[in-house]
């Protein structure tokens, strides 16, 4: 259920209806009738932000215009040009239009479009009253189009009559389509003989000029309760009984038929006369207000975050202070370190020398390991050791004492294998002369 408020400008009076919109029904909660001069004060006090507006425009232009079949996007421009041509006093205006039908004129197909135009200044005067009080307008409907929406489902032609003050709005509907709108002046409220005369003349106009024969007259709104004419109308008269309305204000509900009818207008009915300028204004205002909310929300989040950062900074500062206090001995350590560095600089050549000595493999160990090799039938005559950067190069010379060559080779091979198996030893080159039985082995020890 959604609450809505409709305002109807009806001459000197402004009627306000508060309603609850349900899925299919509308419940009228309250109604108000104000003098036009009281309306601004009402708006100021009223808490509702958004209104649906229905207006009885005194100055309007209506016609059925024939235009050639063109693409939809050109239709509005063609209609606008046609209105400017036909109504010289309409400089700036807004209009609504409906397709009435198509017909063939001089072998050319043309579209017949009903247009209803209202001057921009008339719309602006209404809109500015709402803007000045900080209110939004959801839609502005011309009152006859709003009320016609209630009976558009009737297919046969009929003449509708509604009352605005003492004046009457007459409009003809055929197949649910508006044919024309007429305002007639009256001398008193309700329907009297003079009004019946005017109505009969309108019916004759419909028959003779428009070739439409209205089947009946439909009285709409408060006029239903005030029929005082004695002269008979030329066609039957019926009253609109809005059975679909639930109201707590039964007696006066008919007087509020215009604002109530606005609640029934669906979105597909394009009878909203709100100006493009106002729509832009609303968009800009919405954007500004939304961004205000966004900015303020971000500011609040930012302030909270700033608080969090500030707290973290305070903690960091106290941690830093404690670290600073604990680091008071650093200066002393640094100066001791510098002194120690200077002191050890004098030892550096000794340290380097000792380190280099440690890199060279141990000759004593080299010789000690060599003493463990297999020397069956082998005589080692000389050992020569040369120290390198990180290794020792050794050369072993000697003889194999075996008599046979095979035995010699076997003992020599045992020697080679024995040296190879020593840890850190690798044989680089070895040679044995068969004739002399003399061998030469070059090894590397790491």
């Amino acid at each position, binding site marked *: 259920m959604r609450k809505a408020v409709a305002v109807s400008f009806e001459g000197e009076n402004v009627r306000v209806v508060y309603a609850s919109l349900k899925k299919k029904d509308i419940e009228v909660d309250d109604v108000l009738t104000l003098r036009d001069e009281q309306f601004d004060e009402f708006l100021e006090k009223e808490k509702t932000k958004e209104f649906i507006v229905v207006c009885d425009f005194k100055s309007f232009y209506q016609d059925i215009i024939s235009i050639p079949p063109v693409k939809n996007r050109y239709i509005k421009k063609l209609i606008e040009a046609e209105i400017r041509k036909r109504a010289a006093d309409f400089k700036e205006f807004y209009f609504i239009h409906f397709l009435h039908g198509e017909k063939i004129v001089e072998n050319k197909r043309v579209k017949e479009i009903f247009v209803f135009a209202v001057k921009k200044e008339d719309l*602006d005067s209404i*809109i500015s009253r709402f*803007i*000045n009080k900080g209110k939004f307008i959801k839609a502005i409907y011309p009152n006859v189009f709003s009320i016609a929406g209630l009976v558009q489902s009737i297919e046969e032609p009929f003449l509708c009559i509604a009352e605005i003050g003492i004046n009457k709005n007459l409009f003809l509907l055929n197949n649910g389509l508006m044919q024309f709108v007429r305002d007639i002046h009256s001398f008193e409220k309700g329907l009297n003989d003079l009004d019946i005369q005017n109505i009969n003349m309108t019916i004759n106009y419909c028959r003779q000029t428009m070739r439409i024969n209205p089947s009946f007259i439909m009285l709409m709104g408060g006029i239903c309760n005030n029929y005082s004419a004695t002269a008979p109308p030329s066609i039957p008269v019926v009253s609109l009984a809005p059975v679909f309305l639930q109201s707590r204000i039964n007696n006066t509900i008919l007087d509020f038929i215009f604002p109530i009818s606005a609640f029934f207008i669906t979105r597909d009915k394009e009878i909203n006369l709100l100006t493009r300028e*106002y729509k832009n*204004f609303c968009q800009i*205002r919405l954007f*500004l*207000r939304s*961004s*205000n909310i966004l*900015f*303020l929300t*971000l*500011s609040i989040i*930012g302030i909270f*975050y*700033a608080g969090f*950062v*500030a707290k*973290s*900074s305070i903690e*960091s*500062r106290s*941690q*830093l202070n404690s*670290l*600073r206090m*604990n*680091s008071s*001995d*650093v200066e002393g*350590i*640094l100066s*001791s*370190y510098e002194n*120690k560095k*200077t*002191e*050890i*600089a*004098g*030892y550096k*050549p*000794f*340290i380097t*020398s*000792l380190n280099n*000595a440690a890199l060279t493999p141990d*000759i*004593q160990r080299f*010789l000690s390991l060599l*003493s463990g090799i297999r020397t069956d039938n082998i005589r*080692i*005559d000389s*050992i*020569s*050791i*040369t*120290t390198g950067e990180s290794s020792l190069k050794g050369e072993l010379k000697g003889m194999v004492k075996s008599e046979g060559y095979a035995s010699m080779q076997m003992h020599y091979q045992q020697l080679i294998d024995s040296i190879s198996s020593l840890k850190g030893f690798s044989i680089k080159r070895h040679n044995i002369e068969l004739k002399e039985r003399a061998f030469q082995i070059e090894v590397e020890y790491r």
Partner: protein
Amino acid sequence: MIYAQLKKTIIYHLISGITLSAVVIALLLLNKYDNNFIDAIGKYQLIRINAYKMKQAMADMDSAMNRINTVLPSEYGSKSHRELLLFTLDDIKMAFKGSEIAVTHFDEKEGELFLPVNISFPFDDYSMALKRIGYLQSMKIPQFKIKHVGIDSGADKQTKVVLCKIDGFLKMPLEGLKDAKK
């Protein structure tokens, strides 16, 4: 002109925009301030770690210096480096009895003082030769650097006497430790 009605909304918009900008600027400054603290804390912690490392390094340096001090000859500081090398040569002579020890002349190269020494001695016990080589290798300051060792059984294969020749040099740094010890 209906847009004149937006004046109040625009003023609110400006105020909220300025408020947000002020908050953003304040946040940036605070953030920077906080980051500086965090950086400073990181640096102080690094200083603490470095101070600890310096302490350890100083302990290592002390240990290295003590080690060197323990291997320095007793006469170190009272004698010149040349004298020390010659004292050591005398020690070698004492240790290598029956050996031929030949020296050439002192040399200075790359901040070190060298005294080339050639030692040759006969031996019939392999372990004795190993001990002598071990003795030379164990010298720290001055240090005996062995360049070449030659062990040759020679022509006389009957006597089992083997000749060992050691070519090397005694060396020690040219710069003394006297200044450093102060």
